[in-house]
């Protein structure tokens, strides 16, 4: 099962037939295993990793460090939920160290993001401080180098 996950994480477009050959299983077995993984929410979605900047989109991404006052019973979870429900919020992690939540936000412009932080995030009860960092350039994302020159430099035929 782990091998299926590793292969799909790298290339979600592999066909059942290809996976079956590669892993020496029947297509039926592969389909069954994937169905289980989906049902158990181990596989959450099949996305493509896209270089939007290259496509021409000039969206702005910001990393926000947020400090919280934990709440009785639920700790940070309830506030985290209030934050991750926003569509603008792409990623939310609970962190150790100098701040509590790391939130990644996408917006159309600097102003757009700043506005969202000021009017939506900062006023949430329990949020004590926010620090915003705007991203300037993505070099590598989820293990993929954005501008990798991976041309095949080999000769076409070699001994």
């Amino acid at each position, binding site marked *: 099962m782990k091998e299926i996950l590793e292969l799909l994480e790298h290339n979600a477009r592999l066909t059942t037939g290809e996976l079956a*050959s590669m*892993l*020496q299983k029947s297509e039926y077995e592969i389909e069954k295993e994937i169905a289980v993984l989906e049902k158990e929410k181990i596989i959450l979605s099949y996305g493509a990793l896209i270089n939007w900047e290259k496509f021409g989109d000039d969206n702005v991404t910001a990393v926000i460090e947020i400090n919280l006052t934990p709440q009785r019973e639920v700790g940070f979870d309830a506030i985290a939920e209030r934050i991750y429900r926003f569509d603008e919020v792409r990623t939310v992690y609970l962190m150790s160290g100098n701040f509590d939540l790391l939130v990644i936000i996408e917006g159309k412009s600097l102003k757009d993001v700043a506005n969202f932080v000021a009017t939506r995030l900062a006023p949430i009860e329990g949020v004590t401080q926010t620090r915003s960092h705007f991203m300037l350039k993505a070099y590598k994302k989820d293990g993929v180098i954005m501008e990798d020159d991976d041309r095949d430099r080999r*000769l*076409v*035929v*070699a*001994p």
Partner: protein
Amino acid sequence: MTWQDKLSTSVKSVAPSGIRRFFDIAAKMKDVISLGVGEPDFVTPWPIRESCVYGLERGYTSYTANRGMLKLREEIARHYVEKFNVSYDVDTEILVTVGVSEALDLALRAILNPGDEVLIPEPCYVSYQACTFMANGIPVSVPAKIENEFRITPEELEPFITPKTKAILIGYPNNPTGAIMERDDLLKIANFAEAHDLIVISDEIYGDLTYGGVHECFAALPKMRDRTILLNGFSKAYAMTGWRIGYALSNPDFIAAMTKIHQYTILCAPITAQMAAVEALKRGEKYMKKMVADYDRRRHLIYEGFKTIGLESFEPRGAFYIFPNIETSGFTSEAFAEKLIQTEHVALVPGTAFGKCGAGHVRCSYATSIDKISEALNRIEHFLKSHK
């Protein structure tokens, strides 16, 4: 009188590699999918490249000892003890070379007198015959059989023995067939070599690329260490073809003789490549294993793919080649390769480039991406259908 007439007759008589022609055709096309490449599609793992860069920054740009840096020889010795339980003395029994190609040339030149014969099971790597010939030896081709999955047996070798037979040159896992020899197969060759007092040159460059089992090192077989000149390198397992770095392991007399030639012709392997090789042996194994796991999956994919489109092949167990039989297409292997590249733009190499008994087969390398393998199989299927 032309310049051609001034060439050495022995060099003139060596035929150029049969691979070259397909390279020329393929080089002119744009959308070629190549299954003709005899090297990994991975680049050298970054930590290995980085260690070389770091060495350059610190000024490691000099010659090294003729035999190679002590550190590298120590790593090689450690590797063989740990992996195969066979030990080589770092000072007298290890020689670092410019790829296995140089090591092969040195081995043959060190042991052959004019007219000495070398048994060479075929199909085999394109250099074996030519290097034997250029070392004044006589290459004696021994055809291996497809029925036997291209393993060689003493019964097949025996008829070719003459008083002039000096050595046997084997390369398993095999380029071009992907065949391997298991321990029992090799033990028979070992007995044969001992009975006829032959030197065994064992090219084990694809040893780490063995699937569904472990590689058997010929020198690790009982009584074979001193009789064997073991050749290995970093090109295939660590994706380091362009670095040109390999080594030879054998008894002190053979290594001393090979070192003599090496010191006058090469001096030493490049220090940059030697530093990278140290890193490969120290910390490269996990990257190597990941690449081998990838090759293994592609191996399954291409093996089943050929079965599905009706080209038979035995299951390759090593290296990154598959050697399907294409006789049902009605073409010879050269015609098949040539028509395929012209109509479907898929490059592969006719089996005859690796010896006469490769006729009726083509060599396909699966050191290429899954997408390309799938597309190449589609195109080959289309080719077969349109030439029925």
